[in-house]
């Protein structure tokens, strides 16, 4: 129950900046759509006057546009930064609010859980808004070019699948999508572990951030190196198993470190 209440507080604190981010994302994309439709139509008309255009437009051209990619980049950067800020904001001043959180007579990991849940809600929220925006953009795209009698090729699914970022964000199988979310969680866990470690060590050593990065860096690097070493000795299914174990290992390690530093080492 406390987790839900904590989640409520965290979500309330991020609502304003989050809404700004989403509006920014949607506005940039739809403006770029407008610009794209307008410029492509003009160009097509011009070529059509002097001959037959030798190219066919696809939805991929739109989502390949720089503004589109930039808007996604900004959203990703915002999420990464907020994963740090969601903790560091509580350490503002002389660790004011963090002190209140740590004094709560309950499991400290509830605070950790609430922040993680908030981050995932934000990420999934962005992915949801983006998917709906994409579908709307596709409708506008095809509708407009049909009305302009300009041929268009390729399906919506194809455009998504061939786009670098979108194929990762929206893989062809929903199970893969869930697995990608697990990877996102993992990234957030490591950011959280870093922050908690840094906040616990900063009073003991000036090298806190570097030390934290070193420890977490090795924790991330070692499995990656073993993977590359084994990669050409194992079969695909064995590799998958190795990756699964690696992920589980990473997750438990991150949670274990976070828990240890949050409950025993954190110093406000």
């Amino acid at each position, binding site marked *: 129950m406390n987790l839900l209440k904590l989640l409520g507080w965290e979500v309330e604190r991020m609502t304003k900046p989050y809404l700004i981010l989403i509006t920014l994302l949607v506005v940039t994309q739809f403006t770029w759509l407008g610009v794209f439709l307008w410029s492509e139509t003009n160009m097509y008309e011009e070529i059509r006057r002097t001959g037959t255009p030798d190219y066919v437009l696809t939805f991929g051209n739109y989502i390949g546009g720089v503004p589109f990619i930039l808007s996604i980049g900004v959203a990703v950067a915002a999420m990464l930064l907020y994963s740090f800020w969601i903790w560091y904001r509580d350490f503002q001043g002389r660790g004011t609010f963090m002190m209140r959180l740590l004094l709560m007579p309950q499991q400290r990991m509830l605070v950790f859980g609430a922040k993680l849940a908030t981050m995932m809600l934000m990420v999934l929220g962005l992915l*949801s808004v983006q998917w709906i925006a994409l579908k709307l953009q596709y409708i506008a795209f095809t509708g407009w070019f049909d009305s302009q009698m300009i041929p268009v090729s390729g399906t919506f699914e194809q455009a998504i699948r061939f786009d670098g970022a979108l194929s990762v964000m929206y893989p062809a*199988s*929903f199970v893969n999508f869930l697995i990608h979310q697990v990877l996102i969680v993992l990234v957030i866990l490591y950011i959280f572990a870093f922050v908690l470690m840094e906040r616990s060590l900063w009073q003991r050593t000036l090298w806190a951030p570097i030390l934290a990065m070193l420890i977490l860096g090795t924790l991330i690097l070692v499995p990656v190196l073993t993977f590359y070493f084994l990669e050409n000795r194992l079969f695909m299914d064995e590799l998958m198993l190795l990756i699964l174990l690696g992920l589980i290992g990473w997750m438990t390690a991150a949670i274990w470190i976070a828990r240890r530093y949050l409950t025993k080492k954190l110093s406000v």
Partner: protein
Amino acid sequence: MKRMWNVAALGAVVIIGLGTFAVDMRDTKAEWELAVTSNPEIWEEQTINLYYNTEEGDKERFDLTTDGSRVTTNLSYIEQALAYEDEVDSSVRGFYRQLSGLTFVQSIRTPDGYIGVGQNGNKEIIVFRLNGEDVTKHVFGKDVNGSAEIMDSPWAGLFVHDGNIHVIYRNGYGGNAETKIAKFDEDAKQITMESLELGDEAISTVRGTSWAFRPYMATIAADNRFIPVDMTEQTTVTEGGESYVSEQDKVGVYAYDVDTKQVIELTPDADMWNSTVYDDRLIALQEDGTELVVDLKTGKKSTRQVIDGSVGTTSYVGDQLYHARPTKDGAVIDVYQDGKAISSAVVKATNEEAKALVSNTEYYVD
């Protein structure tokens, strides 16, 4: 509880957004059914691959077995792993694991087990043998005479004769590569090379040799006299004052005669486009539905009429010929062995989604 409104609102957005995404990503519902009309045990572990491409070129593939159809495109990582896992049985894993570390490898399957020849960078050539469970290894280092040359040239394929593994290779890269054969004497740890006088022709591939790991490989006898090969021909072409050498595949059925050490054409105006090397025979299906059969020990040739009427999509698995002819709502697949029809089965689209796909689906058994 005002705060909970924010959470609920965000939750709703997520459910709507990801809900639409999940629905969009739903696997296709097309379902197919395989009804075996005769000789069912042929189909026990046999899978039929159904290729289906939409107008927009979307590829979708199904695996169809006696116990149902399964879509095999857009598999999740887990499904891919599981599909791969039951395709590769454990007996072969050890063998191919050793090969997987090599930079270049070829393997063949003989009655007494798999043989693989691999190259580890330019350091050494290794011959692997899998008989039963254990894998034996013979290393031919850089110091062994001839190994450097072999490692520096493209390989056409392998064959076994008098118990020794042979590698047919093109000596050196570049236009006028000459074809050579290397015999690996594993006990004496020696390699003996011979070159073949083929003029401006060359052996490009040896039938039955697998380039990479393949779950199923046909077994080839270890003492065939004739080794079926593909040939290429080099012609110098001059265009606009410049002349360069171009190489084309030669049509026809060729084999290397181990005794005479010559490459001979087994039969004129036949082709090996759709053929299989199985035990001591080469079987090649011709346009008119007849099968050319060559006894690789004696070189004796014979033909037999197998498919009468138009030839649909065909493929060989071992010495069995699978012939698929599309029908209104699916396809009929006949199986021939030694020229006789030994089994037949019917592929049927069982639901609307599948029926819609029938018009441009191809059926292929491998």
